[in-house]
């Protein structure tokens, strides 16, 4: 009995406090790093302002004559989620790994699950701030009609944050070094955004849409758009399902490839420092 009582991997309230504290330091690191804060929050706001302004009162024939301002509201909320959870997270994890910060955390008593809970919590906070900012700007500046189905809106956000956090973590594990992180992530991200029609809506039956439908980015945009389209129920079950599948796949990749130690310095197998995440 004493042997099992001594093993306490999880410690109730103390551990909740631990995660809370870790979220606070993740937040400090995020906001005090001007580049990550500006690129993540600033871009979604600036892009939305520019495109909402250019949309005027026009409607998109590719979206059955939905007002473009409604499309961009949903689209840039989706962009905000993805830039936080995929772009920002993947790059910052590579930087932390290559600087040796992850190794140091691994050697501290902070449990692995608590670190990832804090990373997710951090993403939720940054996303929430962006969503509120984008909704306010859209409503006040461009008379966007707010979502008619808030339940569907929140569910789409939650599925999106969790799935893209998993995808961001997986992405970080395939990037070899710090120098490659920014360019690689941005290229993948912006090509997919373009394919998925974020800047200008693409027809649902087009070849481009068929290709984009394989990837989760278009589904995130469509899932966030649905609550802004007054002619629809607001739920986008298929899109959420495909994102969820991508999220699970990403977790599998991440758990196989996750590394705590810097990878760039390792030329030979001798210095290879890899440990499975869930081992």
């Amino acid at each position, binding site marked *: 009995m004493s042997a099992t009582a001594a093993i306490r991997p999880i410690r109730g309230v103390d551990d909740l406090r631990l995660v809370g504290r870790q979220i606070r330091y993740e937040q400090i690191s995020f906001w005090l790093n001007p580049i990550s804060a500006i690129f993540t929050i600033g871009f979604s706001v600036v892009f939305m302002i520019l495109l909402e302004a250019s949309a005027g009162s026009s409607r998109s024939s590719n979206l059955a004559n939905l007002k473009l301002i409604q499309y961009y509201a949903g689209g840039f909320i989706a962009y905000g989620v993805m830039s936080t959870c995929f772009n920002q997270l993947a790059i910052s994890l590579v930087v932390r790994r290559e600087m*040796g910060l992850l190794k140091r955390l691994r050697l501290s008593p902070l449990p692995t699950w608590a670190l990832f809970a804090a990373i997710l919590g951090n993403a939720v906070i940054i996303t929430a701030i962006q969503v509120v900012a984008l909704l306010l700007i859209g409503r006040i500046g461009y008379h966007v009609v707010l979502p008619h189905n808030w339940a569907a809106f929140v569910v789409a956000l939650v599925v999106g944050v969790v799935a893209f956090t998993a995808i961001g973590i997986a992405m970080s594990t395939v990037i070899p070094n710090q120098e490659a992180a920014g360019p690689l992530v941005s290229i993948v991200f912006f090509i997919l955004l373009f394919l998925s029609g974020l800047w200008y809506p693409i027809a649902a039956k087009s070849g481009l849409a068929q290709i984009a439908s394989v990837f989760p980015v278009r589904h995130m945009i469509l899932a966030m758009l649905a609550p802004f389209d007054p002619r629809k129920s607001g739920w986008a079950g298929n899109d959420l399902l495909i994102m969820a599948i991508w999220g699970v796949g990403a977790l599998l990749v991440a758990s196989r490839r996750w590394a*705590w130690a810097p990878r760039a310095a390792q030329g030979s197998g001798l210095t290879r420092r890899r440990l499975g995440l869930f081992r």
Partner: protein
Amino acid sequence: MSTVSVEHLSKSYGATTAVEDVSFVVESGEVFALLGPNGAGKTTTIEILEGFRSRDRGDVKVLGFDPGDRLRARELRERMGVVLQELAVEPFLSVRQALARNAGYYPNPRSVDEVLQLIGLEQKASAKVKSLSGGQQRRLDLGLGIVGNPELMFLDEPTTGFDPSARRGAWDLVRSLTRGGTTVILTTHYMDEAEALADRVAVINAGTIVAEGTPESLGGRDVGEASIRFVLPTGVAVSDMPVALTSVHGELGEIRTDREIEVLAALTTWALEGGHELRSLTVERSTLEDVYLRLTGYQAASATEAVVT
């Protein structure tokens, strides 16, 4: 019970053997140094003890835990501290924030102010980590290693890149930790560091321990032959000296012997009676560095020494 015990530890990476049949014991309160050239297996060994790396074979116990046991890893890490070779501190946190954050991971941490004082960064408490100099960052790194009030510290080449005064400061810090009862395992390739800090030294080369003992007795340096050196007196042929010289380096003569009292007596009597000068006369046993170089297989280029027969 020993703080750390390692028996027949082996680890390979593919076809490359990093550590082969390594055994040693570290007692509570001891400073134990693993000394060896780069790639000898120091870091692999220490990372296995930290639980960062898995092992292929052997029994390892650290503070009573098997470091490979994932379920108990958190308990082990609450009682150990680590200072890594690489700098690893979040650049955008302040010094105080970085220390406070890590203190929060441990059940019984030192106070942040105490650590700031120990590492001499009180004046920099609110400075951003990225604004610190290299040496100050290393000191912060050391501070992060001790903030959890560990029973066991791992120091992986803790003073590489330090200037001489920063090294003395780090040594003083390690000594103050050991006075408080902390057990320390350190890796280094500086002989003077091992000599200054370690109670016991193990020399590791190509994955195996080739010698172990106190820094004073390592490799038989307390009982081996001594080296007597002096400037050759002018006007005396080498062959006219009372004792045969082992070698001559320029104007400096050397006699290697394990009977140094007799040799010195003969030499000094001859000098006094004949009125010869023996300038710069020294008697030395091999330095730790000599022993280390011999143990790790370093061959001096023989052309630099003119051997006298």
